[in-house]
């Protein structure tokens, strides 16, 4: 059971890495119609993603100290799903509002990035430290496990970047890709919650 559980955690971390970078890459495409394609667009996007990931790491680490479980882990994915969806649904009115109120496209794009990507990326950032908590059982292996986890999630990020930019944008609309990411995160969350609650129910019997 632990073996499958660990595999699932790694797989979920991989997928979240994939989605984070896929969304970040599409961020440029989403902002361009309102804020152009100057370098400061990427400045805004990368700043917001780094900032929200850093906060996500803090929050995820903190959360993992309170009765960490696979079910709660799945719940983070479910919330991520809910927070990613508005990017596809409401980006147009949000950006139109910011565009009409802020003349300078640098601050406009920064604010738009904040409005669209801050919350979902904070949530997605919580996943890494929480994964470490679920995977580590012995302290002398904690570094190795963290290493494998970073490997898996960053590999996911690399693939999310290249596959989105090389192939997805050629085949699908931006909103369809974002929605697919959201649905994927949601389904993975549900799977984790289901398996997590089974583990808990089985636990007393084996004990």
């Amino acid at each position, binding site marked *: 059971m632990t073996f499958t559980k660990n595999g699932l955690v790694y797989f979920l971390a991989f997928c979240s890495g994939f989605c984070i970078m896929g969304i970040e890459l599409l961020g440029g*495409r989403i902002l361009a*119609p*309102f804020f*152009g394609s*100057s*370098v400061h667009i990427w400045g805004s996007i990368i700043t917001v993603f780094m900032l929200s990931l850093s906060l996500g790491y803090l929050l995820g680490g903190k959360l993992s100290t309170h009765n960490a479980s696979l079910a709660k882990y799945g719940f983070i994915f479910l919330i991520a799903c809910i927070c990613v969806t508005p990017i596809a649904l409401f980006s147009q009115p949000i950006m139109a509002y910011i*565009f009409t109120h802020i003349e300078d*496209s640098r601050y406009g794009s920064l604010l738009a990035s904040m409005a669209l990507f801050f919350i979902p990326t904070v949530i997605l950032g919580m996943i890494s430290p929480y994964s470490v908590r679920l995977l580590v059982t012995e302290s002398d292996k904690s570094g190795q496990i963290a290493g494998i986890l970073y490997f898996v999630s960053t590999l996911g990020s690399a693939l999310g970047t290249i596959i989105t930019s090389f192939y997805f*944008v050629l085949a699908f609309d931006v909103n369809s890709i974002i929605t697919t990411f959201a649905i994927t995160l949601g389904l993975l969350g549900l799977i984790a919650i289901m398996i997590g609650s089974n583990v808990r129910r089985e636990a007393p019997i084996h004990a």
Partner: protein
Amino acid sequence: MLKPLFIVAMCVFSSLIFSKEIHQERSLYRNIIVDEKGDTLCLQFNTRITKLNQSCIYKSNPDKLFFNYTKMIFASLLFIDNPSNVLIIGLGGGTLSNVIHQLFPDAHINNVEIDPAVVKVARDYFHFIETDRVVSTVQDGRIFIKRAALKKQTYDWIILDAFNGDYIPEHLLTKEFFEEANSVLAPGGIIAANTFSSSKLYDHESATYYSVFGDFLNVSRHNRSNRIILAGLNTMPSATDIDTRANQLAPRLSRYNIDLKDIRQLINTTKDNHDWPENTKVLTDQYSPANLLNN
């Protein structure tokens, strides 16, 4: 005794044949090179492998236009009367702006260029004329047009020349962008776009223009090497009217090296003549992999 003569001859010869970089700078977006070769002075955007000429002038006669596509843009004048508000997206060396200013000294011309270094080079090397009527704005073209639409500004001649042949700003090649451009087009005005004529992008571009403007005009030679799209016309003048105008205007344009009567022969309408497949996907803000399609 012949040696000095030979050296002089070689120098003259090499200055004619070999190009000389007289200015180079790295801007926020690209490498900019000003290259001199004989009588021509060119603005180039450079990558390691290719140097793409963006804009060239004849040093002996800067009024003469160099590139065919810039000449073909003047086909617009067969369909509009004296333009009073001109919008040019993509400055290059400023040659288009200069010629339009000389033809219509009263016209307001707004050049929009994303790269401040290009504006500087146009001023320093390409005699880009700026007056109280001819101005340049350093901004992304899409943002400029969106803001112009908010201010209810209109232009009777909009020239889209922002593609450098190497990289396409994809947000300037979508249905939504053309709708925005159309919204700042004055009644009776025209949009002239320098476009991609080879690759799969030709079809996507045609389909996208058609989705916004309906049938439009192509100005191109048969080999599809360069294509100017003329769109946004309310009414199509008759062939005889166009001929008459071409004859009237031709003398005024000839000093700029524009043979309007020849260019007139290159204009074809897409009416009953769609040369792109029916199911070609329209480029939108949601789907705009223009650079990938251009490979």
